[in-house]
């Protein structure tokens, strides 16, 4: 009897999955390829260290790079400690609420999910109203960075929280049974174990922050000169690309080159952050990723 009967539905299903996957890869490859081909010829050392001239048609992007880095730094320095704290609170410290724990964490969790889904332009308007006007920070790197921090916090918190929740309960029990305090348990066992999730959250957040335009136009501003301080206005790279491609005729070439720089920058930052975390914060811990292999 022929057991390998030809199943048309199975065949169709398998090949449609292949085709869709291939399509996705092609779109990404085309996008990256397009940016690379059109941008690479304009990329040079001078492009990175010169001031923009004639509204960015000529010259480089040095001040814009400075502003972008400063905005990103402000956003991360604000968001990471707050985000980690909230994640730890949500995942570890709410048990004292007893029967109110579930409703409380559920409510905070869904609030965060809603916040994560809000379009960035709304964050931009909020940042403008709150940081720029109400707190009087004006159009500044600081306003922009803080707005971005608000924007990336929900996603960062949720990623870290789910990472912490995924930590094997047996390690928590083990730590408690040894009379170890909450603080030691969190800092020496839970956080190092959650490192992959924290990293994922960080990379996701940085990607979103670096690529942000809408939230920054109203907060950190538009000025393409180098900022003097955190209270000075500055143009982020994504805003620069938007401006060159939409408002400046003949700016396309430099827009592509800037886009290529943006992509490379995100790549470099990811590698550097990973290396930094490895070296400084998790030096004492050797974590085997596939812990499942030892616990059958």
């Amino acid at each position, binding site marked *: 009897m022929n057991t390998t009967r030809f199943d048309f539905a199975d065949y169709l299903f398998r090949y449609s999955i292949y085709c869709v996957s291939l399509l996705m890869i092609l779109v990404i490859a085309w996008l990256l390829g397009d940016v690379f081909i059109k941008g690479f010829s304009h990329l040079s050392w001078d492009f990175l260290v010169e001031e923009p001239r004639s509204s960015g048609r000529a010259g480089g992007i040095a001040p814009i790079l400075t502003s972008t880095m400063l905005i990103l730094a402000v956003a991360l320095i604000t968001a990471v400690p707050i985000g980690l704290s909230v994640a730890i609170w949500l995942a570890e410290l709410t048990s004292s609420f007893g029967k109110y724990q579930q409703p409380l964490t559920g409510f905070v969790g869904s609030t965060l999910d809603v916040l994560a889904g809000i379009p960035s332009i709304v964050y931009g308007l909020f940042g403008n109203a709150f940081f720029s006007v109400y707190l009087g920070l004006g159009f500044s790197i600081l306003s922009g960075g803080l707005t971005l921090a608000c924007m990336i916090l929900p996603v960062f918190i949720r990623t870290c929280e789910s990472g912490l929740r995924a930590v094997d309960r047996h390690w928590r029990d083990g730590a408690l049974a040894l009379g170890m305090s909450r603080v030691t348990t969190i800092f020496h066992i839970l956080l190092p174990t959650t490192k992959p999730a924290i990293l994922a959250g960080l990379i996701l957040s940085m990607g979103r922050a670096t690529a942000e335009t809408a939230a920054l136009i109203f907060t950190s501003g538009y000025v393409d000169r180098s900022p003097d301080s955190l209270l000075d206005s500055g143009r982020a790279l994504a805003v620069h690309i938007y401006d060159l491609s939409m408002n400046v005729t003949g700016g396309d070439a430099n827009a592509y080159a800037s886009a290529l720089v943006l992509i490379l920058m995100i790549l470099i930052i990811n590698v550097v952050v990973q290396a930094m975390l490895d070296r400084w914060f998790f030096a004492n811990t050797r*974590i085997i990723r596939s812990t499942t292999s030892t616990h059958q």
Partner: protein
Amino acid sequence: MTELETQSLTKSTYSQPTFTLGELEQGTQCCEPTPHLAIENLSVSYHSVPVLSDVSLNIYKGCITALIGPSGCGKTTFLSTLNKLIDNNYNATVTGSMKLDESDLVKDTIDTLQLRRRIGMIFQRPNPFPLSIRRNLDLPLKEHGIRNAKTRAEKIEKALSDVGLWNEVKDRLDSSALQLSGGQQQRLCIARAIVLEPEVLLMDEPCSALDPVASAVVEDLIQRLAGSYTVVIVTHNLAQARRVANYAAFFWMTERVGKLIEFGHSQHLFEQPKHALTAAYITGKQG
């Protein structure tokens, strides 16, 4: 409720269990029986639903006490009440009294972290932290205020030697504890508990996740620990309970509430059980 159960519950002296310890005729005589933990009328409930009711027994110093009984009859709950790990579950309420030395662990306000240093616990599934072998023992020592690195190193070596792991791991103390085999991991967990020099060791089915060879090694170790430590061990392996324990307590679930049915010298409990349920359980007729 099964016929046997109903019969035994109505006929026996179930309502007023009295546990008196007779002379030990043979087997491991561990000590003169001095109570280390005196437990009276201990009841535990989750969300106001009782899971363990009216347990009274003494845990004797330097002896091994085995807790036996079917799954879900409250053995593990009882064990985690002893080191107050149950406090972490805010839905749990504990009543009764549980005396360690002069302090009542139920009524008095006690330093839980210090208590857990005195009462160590080993879990069913080996749970070494995802850190190096050395750091698994170093971290609890540091936590309990041993600042001197040399003292810590000495204590670590001693604890690892006590569990027979030192020769196996001394060349790779800084490699991950998760690379050890299951049996080694469980012995590491025991070392991690005894490095704090506790008085009591609670073991929740310490061998059930291990293969027979590793299980025998750990069982051997438990027997060697008796005398130096008071051991309370939950086990489903009746042969093991019989081999290692000086005292045995039999738990059973009636109407979804765990109860202590019989407690005594393990030899008496296994050879001349007083209660029909015990007899049925140890001969495999029920449970």
